[in-house]
């Protein structure tokens, strides 16, 4: 017998969506394969790298280890949901200006972690900005982007 398919409703980037989900499916799988939102990446798939970070109910989560059923009735924000009217979000601008993209693959994860951080606290301590991008000694540019966001966010 195959898996029972459930209809899951979620608001993704401000749009109400309804998708058919099987119990094993991750939010990452649903976003990428069912909703074609491929901005969210699948990285290590072991809850370690952060490339798949999205916001669920405004909180940063790993979409690879979030079962899609847990997002039923929830509000999901992906990298495609940032910015408005064709303009980049301030965080994206800061990352671009500081050339903080690295190879680009996990940049959406960096940016979504940064988004959650600044939404919760517009004036984060440097230890919090470091924690947000993990392995921070290697990531000085994302950190300097956050400093810029902090300055401009205040303006």
């Amino acid at each position: 017998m195959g898996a029972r398919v459930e209809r899951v409703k979620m608001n993704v980037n401000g749009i109400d969506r309804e998708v058919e989900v099987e119990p094993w499916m991750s939010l990452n799988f649903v976003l990428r394969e069912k909703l074609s939102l491929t901005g969210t990446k699948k990285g290590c798939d072991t809850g370690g790298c952060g490339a798949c970070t999205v916001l669920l109910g405004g909180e940063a989560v790993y979409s690879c280890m979030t079962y899609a059923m847990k997002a039923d009735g929830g509000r999901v924000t992906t990298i495609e949901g940032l910015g408005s009217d064709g303009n980049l979000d301030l965080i994206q601008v800061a990352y671009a200006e500081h050339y903080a993209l690295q190879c680009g693959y996990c940049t959406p994860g960096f940016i979504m972690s940064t988004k959650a951080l600044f939404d919760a606290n517009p004036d984060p301590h440097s230890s919090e900005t470091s924690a947000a991008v993990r392995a921070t000694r290697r990531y000085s540019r994302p950190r300097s982007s956050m400093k810029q966001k902090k300055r401009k966010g205040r303006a």
Partner: protein
Amino acid sequence: MSEFLPKHYFRPETASEASQTLARYKDRCIVIGGGTVIYELAQRGLLSDVEALVDLTRLSLDQVKDGERFTSIGASVSLSRLQGSAALHEGRLACIGDALREIRPLQVKNLATVGGAVSSCIPFFDLPVALASVGASVELNGPHAVRSVPILEFQRDFLQPDLREGEFVSAVLIPHEMASRASAFSKFALTGDDWATVNCACSLEIVKGVIREARIVFGAVASKPLLAERCGAALVNRRAEAASISKADESLDDELGEPISDHRASSAYRKRVAKLLLRTTLERAFERRGGGG
């Protein structure tokens, strides 16, 4: 590796419905809290027999409440939410606050639940060790009754909770008198996000600068958290100051026995780390009480 392909995802509306589902599927189902532990276990091929996930979200177990004798932390409370809860404000249950700060990354902490951290019985976790040091019990909701079991008894062994047919963890209960104890938690891990190589928590009842009771618990040294009873007893009637720590230290070697040895650390290495953590943890607890009581 066997694939994890559950066929059903149940979201019971009542505790009774949850128990019936768990009783019907027995070992072929598992309760899902945030899902992060399930994901880890599934990745390791340990859940290939699981046919159904039972999500308790609709049971309203997402509150931290003060009852007559206990602070009750609902099983569905996320670790992030617990960290921000009033139950931990103003230095109360400081060892739990310490443990939650040590759990990373935030993306996991936003999903992972208290029920999952406790019922998964993974000996490298931080929260169960801190909870054990403040004498927490686990509230179990079953088909016919609700019972509570001390966490150190509930966690019988690696991945082995004391759950009877149809039972699930509904809350963790912390006695009110523990909130005012001087407590602390420390952890040694190989990286900022890793599970503990060794962790340690203590809670101390200090009266006029003298220790009246001490609960010292170590994690990641055995297949479940270890209450170092002799270590704690050695501190009783001694002053809450650094000079007393050597007394607790004396029995530690013997009490730890032969800690587990794995890819993170050898048994001997864990023993050395445990000794250092004992000192760090007690000193931190003494500082919080200023040694004055």
